[in-house]
């Protein structure tokens, strides 16, 4: 990893420093990895109460103009005209080969206005991709300079209300702009109910301070964010999905409406239709190692006879499940739950079973 001096700093870096965070490099940013509570307790705190994450490394783009619908419908495999105002959805930017350039959340703010939330590591590429597709269209793409906070956990709503932010009427995968320069959505990346709030730095400081002063809320670092999303069966771009992975292999076709799969004119449509027709040779699955030894990303999987069977893409220990959890890609014929494979770790073969995702049930607020 690059030296700390070359990494970008979060606008609220000093708050994390004062909270005793340990920092590490991620996607070009110096990010809080853990706080004094430690990753295990941070993780469990999110599942039991509420955790505050600073995810300002992620990028927001506001897309507006008479051709906003055309641009979104070209860039993403869904029909934005079918979205209701305030509705969000998980979608992708695909390349012409239907590889996943990024996974994103798109929210319809108004008739011709959308908010796109993109991954930190892909932000520059996403912007260039969108701008290239926007050539000749009457549309404005505005990268926003915001602090971005996520409050996740069963007490997230109550804590946000206590901090003076109204969340009434907002269901999972919906978003709105409660104040000028703010974007509030009921979404997140932990499997828990929760919110993501983008807002100007001068508003973010008092809000973050009020939230962590609440006894139900703790700062949570990137390490626990990773174990939470892994238990929740959610993909990390660059690790579980990439430009070399199609939504077919990634088991993410559910995010692409059926009529759009069949007739949509989005980038990568033809390759996606071909991939659906051919079927993927490998499929993304959950993996539960036997015993206590974690199985990490990059580890090779073999079948009973020792033949190559797939690869682990993410793995670690699940503090809520109490056992190691992993996900990866296995040959299609080996993808059914319960199939036993072996992970090759340091010359040993650790038995792993294909396990349904998620490992911990989602607890989203669907109203």
């Amino acid at each position: 990893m690059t030296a700390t001096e070359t990494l970008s700093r979060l606008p609220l870096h000093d708050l994390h420093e004062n909270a005793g965070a340990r920092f590490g490099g991620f996607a070009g940013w110096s990010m809080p990895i853990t706080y004094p509570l430690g990753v295990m307790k941070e993780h469990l705190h999110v599942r039991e109460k509420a955790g505050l994450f600073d995810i300002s490394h992620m990028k927001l783009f506001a897309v507006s103009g008479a051709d906003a619908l055309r641009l979104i419908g070209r860039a993403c495999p869904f029909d934005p005209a079918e979205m209701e105002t305030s509705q969000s959805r998980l979608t992708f930017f695909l390349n012409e080969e239907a590889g996943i350039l990024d996974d994103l959340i798109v929210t319809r703010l108004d008739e011709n206005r959308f908010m796109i939330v993109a991954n930190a590591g892909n932000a520059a590429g996403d912007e260039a991709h969108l701008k290239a597709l926007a050539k000749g269209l009457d549309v404005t793409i505005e990268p926003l300079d915001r602090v971005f906070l996520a409050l996740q956990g069963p007490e997230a709503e109550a804590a946000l209300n206590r901090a003076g932010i109204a969340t009434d009427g907002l269901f999972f995968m919906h978003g709105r702009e409660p104040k000028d320069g703010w974007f509030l959505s009921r979404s997140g990346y932990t499997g828990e109910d929760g919110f993501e709030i983008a807002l100007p730095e001068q508003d973010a400081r008092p809000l973050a301070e009020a939230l962590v002063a609440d006894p139900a809320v703790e700062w949570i670092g990137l390490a626990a964010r990773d174990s939470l999303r892994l238990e929740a069966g959610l993909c990390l771009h660059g690790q579980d999905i990439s430009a070399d992975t199609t939504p077919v292999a990634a088991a993410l076709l559910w995010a692409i409406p059926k009529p759009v799969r069949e007739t949509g004119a989005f980038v990568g449509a033809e390759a996606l239709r071909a991939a659906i027709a051919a079927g993927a040779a490998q499929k993304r699955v959950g993996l539960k190692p036997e015993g206590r030894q974690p199985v990490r990303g990059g580890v090779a999987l073999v079948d009973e006879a020792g033949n190559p069977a797939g690869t682990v893409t993410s793995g670690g220990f699940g503090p809520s499940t109490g056992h190691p959890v992993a996900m990866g890609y296995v040959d299609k014929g080996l993808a059914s739950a319960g199939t036993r494979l072996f992970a090759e770790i340091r010359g040993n073969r650790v038995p792993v079973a294909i396990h349904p995702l998620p490992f911990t049930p989602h607890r989203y607020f669907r109203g």
Partner: protein
Amino acid sequence: MTKIYFTEDHEWIRVEGETATIGITDYAQEQLGDLVFVDLPDVGAAFAKGDTAVVVESVKAASDVYAPADGEVTAVNDKLSAEPGLVNTAATGDGWLWKMKLSDAGQLDGLMNEAGYKEMIG
């Protein structure tokens, strides 16, 4: 006579006669965070100085612990199979990793004492 040495890789070695007890330092356990698994060697295994003897796994990552000198494993801390967190709570006590019979105790001469190690970690 008991002597304690420290390595640049954050191991501690307590030597009594020809037997060394090895663990990771408190500083190291704090850097690694909550340990969830310790991959211990078999008693009788032979290591050369610098070999990976133990792998400690935190929620997030795996880290190697190296043999500080040549020798043979005479005991491992079985308690860690059920309670890997002992390394976090008692890195230099109950959280020891393994014991080995040294074949050349002179190999430890280049290592740091406690004061030197403290200076290194700052």
